Structures are given as C-alpha cells and as structure tokens.
C-alpha cells in the first residue's frame, strides 16, 4: 500500500530524514517510535506534503502512484490522512460545516456522490459519540477553544468521517489522560480493516497497549535504527531509547 524507499528530506536546508525505507501493507498497523528530535513529525509532514518539507532523494509510492508528485489535497483524495500532533484552530469555520465541505470535496475528487445534509449529520453524530467528541463541539469553530484532548479526539473524528485508507497518527497520545487515550484507541481500532493501514507515531509505548501494532520501528537521528514486532515496544519501555540503541541521548537526535 505504502512504500517509502530511501527517503532523504530536509527542512530549512537541514537534513532531517537520512534514508528512510519502510513498506506498509493493507490492513497493517506500524508504530514509529523515537525520542524527541528524531525526525518523526518530519516524516509525517513529508507524507502529507507540507510546504517546506523537501524530499531531496528517494521515493514514496502509494497504491502504485508517486505520492511526492501529488498535492496535499490529492493525497487526501487518494485516501491519505494525517492526524496532527498540534491540530490547527480555524476560527470562523464551524466544525460540522468544515467536515462536510471536506468530505464533499473528497467525494467529488473520488468521483462519488456527495453526502446529503441529513445523512452527513447522522453519521457525524454517531461517529462523534464513538470517539467521545461532545455534541456541542460539532457546532463550534474548528478546534477553537478546544482542550488538548478535545482537539485530539476531533482529529480522530475527522479521520473516521473522511474515509481514508491510510492514516498517520502523529503523537495522538500526547496530552491525553488514560480515559481519553482509551476512547481514542477504541475509535482507531473500530476503523481497522483489511484495506486500511495505520502508521502510529509515538514517543511512548503506552498508546501501543491499546492500539496493538503489527510492526514497530525505532527512529533516531533521521534513520530507522531497529524494526521488530510489538515486543520491541515493550523492550523499549523497559530500557529506554539510550539502552535499546546503545547510544547517548544526544546522538539520537538528528545531528547537523
């Protein structure tokens, strides 16, 4: 489904990703773990196509297509979704309105029928309940005045509504208490299916107790240092990144 081949990327002229290679098959959940500054969020933005995150070499193939040639919204239409670490506040745009416009734009691009207002609202209310987004937040402006936890849940709600095939969760667990974490994980697990894949980016092993990955990768200094099964996360939890990788913390960050 997604193949990342020896990708190097830089931000502001500094190389952050130094050769990432990773293949994710339909239905799989991969966890990307790593300390702060290891390049995790850069990978997420490179996949989503954010301006200023420039791939200098390597390629990314998504469902047989060259992802790097696609605009951000084309990636979304192709089924790519990024749940952001810091969801953006959009004052003046109501949450439910925004989601409906987004869904209709995606459906238009996918050659599908637009959702009727009634059908959309019904699904939205159901999904909001599943991921624990309070009904009143649907009418409020996107993420505006939401707590950290509410923003993260709102990302998962968007993910559920926009029918993606490949989801990247960038530190979705940060800022969540244990109950919120469980709700969010339930939402994600409810979306699992043979045709839908996930890349779960996290600093901590905690989230992986609830969203159980098929594969775990450890990123440091812009490269995948180790890959393994879910037990790798447990190993990491016991010993930390320094012990696992046998390097001092400073060397795990992306060096200049």
């Amino acid at each position, binding site marked *: 489904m997604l193949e990342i081949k020896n990708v190097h990327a830089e931000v502001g002229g500094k190389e952050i990703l130094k050769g990432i290679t990773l293949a994710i098959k339909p239905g799989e959940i991969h966890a990307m773990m790593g300390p702060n500054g290891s390049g995790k969020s850069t990978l997420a933005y490179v996949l*989503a*196509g*954010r*301006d200023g995150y420039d791939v200098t070499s390597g390629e990314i193939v998504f469902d047989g297509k060259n992802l790097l040639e696609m*605009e*951000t*919204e084309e*990636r*979304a*239409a192709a089924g790519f*979704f*990024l749940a*952001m670490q810091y*969801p*953006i506040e*959009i*004052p*003046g*745009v109501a949450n439910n*309105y*925004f*989601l409906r*416009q*987004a*869904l209709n*734009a*995606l459906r238009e*691009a996918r050659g599908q029928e637009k959702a009727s*207002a009634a059908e959309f609202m019904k699904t939205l209310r159901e999904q909001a309940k599943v991921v624990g987004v309070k009904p009143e937040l649907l009418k409020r*402006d996107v993420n505006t005045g939401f707590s950290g936890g509410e923003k993260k849940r709102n990302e998962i709600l*968007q993910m559920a509504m*926009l029918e993606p095939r490949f989801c990247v969760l960038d530190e979705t667990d940060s800022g969540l208490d244990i109950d919120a974490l469980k709700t969010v994980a339930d939402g994600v697990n409810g979306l699992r299916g043979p045709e839908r894949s996930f890349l779960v980016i996290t600093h901590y092993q905690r989230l992986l107790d609830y969203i159980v990955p098929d594969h775990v990768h450890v990123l440091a200094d812009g490269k995948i240092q180790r890959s393994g099964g879910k037990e790798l996360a447990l190993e990491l939890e016991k010993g930390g990144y320094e012990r696992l990788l046998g390097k001092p913390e400073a060397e795990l960050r992306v060096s200049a």
Partner: protein
Amino acid sequence: MVAQRHTEADASFRSNFEAIAANAPNAAIQAWRQESFARFEAIGIPTTRFEPWKYTNIGRSLRQPFRPARAPQLGSDAMRAHFAGGPSARRLIFINGQIQSSFSHAHGFPEGVVVKPLSTMLRDAPDRVLDGLDADDERSFTALNGAFLTDGAWIEVPAGVNVTTPLQLLFLTVAEPAAAMCHPRIVVKLGEGSSLHLIESHIGLGGQVLTNLVTQVELGEQAVLDHDRLQLGGDGTTLVGRADVDLGRKARLNQVLATSGGGLTRNETEARLNGSGIECILNGTFLPRGNEHIDNTIRIEHRAPDSHSDQFYKGVLDDKARAVFAGKILVTREAQRTNAYQRNNNLMLTDDAEIDAKPELEIYADDVKCSHGATSSDLDEISLFYLQSRGLDRRRATAMLTYAFAGEIIDRYRDDGLKKQAQRSVLDRLPGGKALDFLE
C-alpha cells in the same frame, strides 16, 4: 505654491444643476438648492491635501460629467433578489435615487410611525425637512447633496413605539445611457424609548452611477436602532456616503456594515454621544479587489460621561485593491468614565493591495478606558495546509479562511436574509468560493 485643499468642481455640475433648478417642488426647496449649490461651488472638491480625504482621491472619480439620474425601469425579479427582512418586512425601493412607489410597501406600521419617500416630504412638508438641515455645513458632498435634493427616505418613530417589523431601504443603481448621479438623503428620528430595525441595501447593478448619500440619524433617550447595512457595488459605481448620528442618553446603536465591489466607496460616519449610558457599536467589513477602493472614515465623539463605543472593522484586500480605515475617537473633558474601543484587522491576499489604517485618539478626560489596534497579515500557511490535508484544494481552502475572517462581522447582521446575501456575495467574489456553500 500653496497646496490646494480643494479644487474647483467640474463645470458640468453647474450646467446639470441649472437644468434641474426649475424642477423644485416649491420655492422653499428651490431656495435651499440654490444656496447649497453656491456653497458647493465655493467649497469645491476635496483633494488629498485635505486631511479627511488624504487617502481617497475622489477627484479622480469625478472627472467625467454626471447627469442627474432619470430612474430607468427594472424588472421586479431583479429587485426581489435583494429583498431582506423576512416576509413581514416593509420596504422603500429606489432606482438611481428615485422612489419606486408601485414596488414599495411602507404601510401598516404602528400609529404615529412615519415612513415616507423624501420626495413626498419635500412636496408636502418642506419646512419640516429644511428645519433639520445645516445651512453652514462646509462639506463638499453634503452641499452637493443639498443642491440636488430630490428624494430619499423620511422615517419617524414616536416615543415609546417599538417597530417590530424590519424596514428595508433598498437602493438599486442601474446603467443609464450616460454617466448618472443621484443624491439620496435618509432621515431617521427615533423618539424616546422607541426602537427600529433598519435594513439598508445599496446594490450596484452596473453602469457609471455616482450615489452621493447623506444620512441623518437622531436617537432620543433610550431609543434603540439596529442598523444592518449592505453595500454591493457594481463595476463603475461610486458611492460617497456620510452619516451623522446623534445619540441621546441611554440610546443604543448597533450597526453592521459590509461593503464590497464598486469602483470607489467612501463610508463616513460621525456619531455624537450626547448623553450618559449610551452604547454605540459599529461593526464593519470591507472586501475590495481588482482596483476597487473602499474608505471607512469614522469619528466618534464622547460628549458626556459613562458611555460606551466600540468600532470593529475587518478588511480583506485582494489584487491591487486599496482601503482606508480612519477611526477617530474624541473624548471631551466632561466624558469621564468613557469606554471607547477600536479594532481594525486586515487580511492582505496579495502584496500589491494596500491599506491605510489611521487610528486616532484625542482624549481630554482623565478617567477613561480607550484602546485602539490595527493589524495586517496574510493567510496562515499552516491553516491552509491543514485544510488541504483534509481534501480542500488551495483555492477552496483560501476561500474558506478568507470567508471566515470576514464572516466574524457578517455573522453579526441581525437579519438572516441580509446575512445570506452578504455571505453569498463575499464567497462568489473569492476564487474558489463558488465551490463552497454556506447557505444551507
């Protein structure tokens, strides 16, 4: 060489004035027009050397002759598209400044309420109209308006009467064979403790038409005026408007004014807070694009203690558009414990657009809370990325964020019909906006 604060008006004003001079409904109005025209000629046209017109070169818009408008016909469907106020609303409709009696409907108000075309008042009660006019006014366009005084709206609400049905003044301008001008005047008098919801629309349907509007508003003690104003100019339309508002003790003015389109628009407002406990709220948004120019010039005078004023204007400038926001707050020595705020935030969609923001505070009282702030910025990249990552293309994302910016003001319209018209017109003017729907 001494800088000229005014320049001589084009000779066509005189020939056009002479052509209509004999048409006055009576001697009193004729005399007023003559006197006003003499004043206009003596003053001339303001140049950019004259401080109140520093950023708006009005002379450039007046280089061609404008003939007094002749009010061409317009189909009722074209009018209906701009109706607002809901099914019960009363309405006066003007085309190029002249009342369209057969399409207007201004009956069924509570007893004592007067809503009439100004032309009727000039014919039947000229002294009542002339009573309220200032023969010493030294403003060029006010004098010009007096010289061509023909029509407009006369609205009186007696003390204690709450008018619950909205009243719409719908001014449409349409092309004539030659460039045309009209000089409507609106007079609103609300008696003590009365209230009115006034909707004022100025819609330009194309053609070279100059509208020189003068508005006089008097709010008695505890009177409440909700004033929704929408100005959608057409290509080639010029709108120069000045409103004078006098507020009495505990009166409340709540105005929302959105302006887009038109070659040049000048919205000048002067509010005088003559008593305590007044609330004067002026919200506005302006969205020029192309070579359009929109000038909002506001002066608020706090003349008594314990009143509150709040100006909040948001601009969206595209292409090579220019805009002016000049807001002055004057607090006299008597006006202790005044709260006066002013905010002007501008969204610049291109590097070529230009805003002149000129906030001014002049405060003589020592116990006041006054503030002003102006910002200009472009669209936030990370917000655009966020919307794109959810499937909206760049144009739609830009339209959505731009709309949201202006929408903060448009949402404050009291009338839903007018709100929707404003929303649609703003969206339709944004690249990518047509693909968005706000009207469900």
